[in-house]
């Protein structure tokens, strides 16, 4: 067996054992699929997205589902933090790509965005194990809420700014129209939601719906995270463009007095 140094020396100047690539005389491949001859005439971009991210070609209805969920995940409203970054980039007159990339990076947040999906999938899958082992849903939720001082800080439930999430209804109806049954993780999510609505006036958010549904499709936390790095891109781009086309300095302009200073009083530099 090669040691580490021998292994690294064998890799110098070579790209070995690749899952995909372009061989000039032969074609373009990803995970054994011929992208131009097999995928292009027969599949959608979302098939390729899943193929590149997860290594398999999904069934057609999952791609329809993913395309629909992307509509839910990115809105042209600059009050959303990542979109606000896009708007500021428009104000600063960056390129569209810089703006969109900056907004996408902003969405890698513990409060919203792809990162919360990874946590959400881990949470619903861990929750299911606990419930399957016999703990009641009220006992489980209350044990979780103790960790956050009684506040509903459960990944996939509640959301910033508003209570309720209209996207869950829309996606639930569309999911049904695709012929999907409610699987065990989504059922658990709804059962937890029933308790939370009754006792805390909080419900499942779209991240919780995604996490539970994709758990039912057999995906794990990291797989789901890898599917959604660009989930906010179109809304960020929209906010960037809208601000780019507005008059200069017009994005929430701040006078000097609009920022309050609460630091040390004015002072002199110490003498050497």
């Amino acid at each position: 067996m090669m040691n580490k140094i021998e292994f690294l020396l064998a890799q110098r100047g070579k790209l070995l054992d690749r899952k995909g690539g372009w061989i000039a005389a032969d074609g373009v491949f990803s995970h054994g699929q011929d992208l131009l001859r097999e995928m292009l005439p027969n599949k959608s971009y979302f098939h390729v997205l899943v193929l590149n991210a997860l290594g398999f070609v999904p069934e057609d209805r999952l791609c329809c589902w993913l395309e629909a969920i992307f509509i839910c995940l990115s809105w042209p409203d600059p009050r959303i933090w990542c979109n606000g970054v896009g708007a500021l980039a428009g104000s600063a007159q960056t390129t569209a790509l810089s703006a969109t990339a900056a907004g996408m990076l902003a969405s890698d947040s513990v409060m919203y965005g792809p990162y919360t999906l990874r946590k959400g999938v881990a949470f619903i899958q861990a929750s299911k194990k606990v419930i399957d082992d016999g703990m009641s849903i009220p006992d489980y939720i209350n044990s979780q809420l103790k960790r956050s001082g009684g506040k509903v800080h459960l990944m996939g439930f509640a959301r910033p700014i508003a209570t309720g999430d209209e996207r869950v209804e829309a996606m639930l109806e569309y999911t049904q129209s695709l012929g999907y049954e409610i699987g065990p993780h989504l059922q658990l999510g709804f059962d937890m939601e029933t308790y939370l609505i009754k006792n805390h006036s909080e419900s499942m958010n779209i991240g919780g719906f995604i996490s539970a549904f994709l758990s039912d499709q057999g995906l794990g936390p990291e797989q789901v995270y890898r599917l959604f790095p660009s989930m906010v891109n179109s809304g960020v781009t929209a906010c960037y463009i809208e601000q780019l086309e507005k008059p200069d300095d017009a994005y929430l302009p701040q006078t000097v007095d609009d920022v309050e200073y609460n630091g040390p009083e004015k002072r002199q530099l110490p003498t050497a």
Partner: protein
Amino acid sequence: MVDRKSERNVTVKHRDEKYADRYRTAIWQEESEHDNPFVETDAYCRGYRFEDLVANTSYAEMVFLMIKGELPSSSQKALFEKVLVAFSHPGIRNDAVRAAILAGVGKTVPENVLPIATLVFGGSRTGAGDVEKMMRFFAKNKRKLPADVLAVQEQPIVLGQYFGEADVMAAKICAWLMGDEQETPHLHWGKALVAEAQASDANIGWTKASVAAALFCDLGFMPKFGVGLLQMMAAPGLLAQGFEHANKPATVLPFVSDDDYELSAQVGNDE
């Protein structure tokens, strides 16, 4: 399928949380004596007039002041200036430096080159990504005996390998910056931890990031600044390398030939 839609009773309502009426900061103050209230005519950082800072302070002092809230002592200033130099270039074969070079030679628009490289330098293995966790590790464990810490964690986050061995340059940087016990206590404790760990495995040791983390603790920075501080410090090297050959043809870089590009055995379709 049960019609969950009809069973759910969810309405969307604003939480009506109280948001700040304006942003507050303890770092930067602007004043205006202009007819246009949007135009600042003077500025202060942590209470010091900006003009005076420009005239009288070094870059190291200014960074320290902004992040810590006070100017550094003379010994802190001397150490921080060395730290800024020590971590100004991650090494020519570092992933982030290579990303900067790829972006530059790849004719990426110039404003994107440094952000690209800095992002890659946010990685946890060869960049700054774990510095906050490392700083928290030092803060939590520094009062314990290294042997006791290693008894619980065989390889703590501050120890690692570099191409399969202990990182020689990281250890050298540690030695270059080591002050007395009072000046660099975390670095001293980390050195003892490394020595204890190497007694059973000579191939693990400091990482460059963990040396930086120990020094950031010694300088009194809060862990939340750690990742960004090290990214900021690496910027000069990333910038210089990114643009060194940015005006040259893409052929200045090696390109892996098709003969050296190997697709794995065809992966089946799991549909």
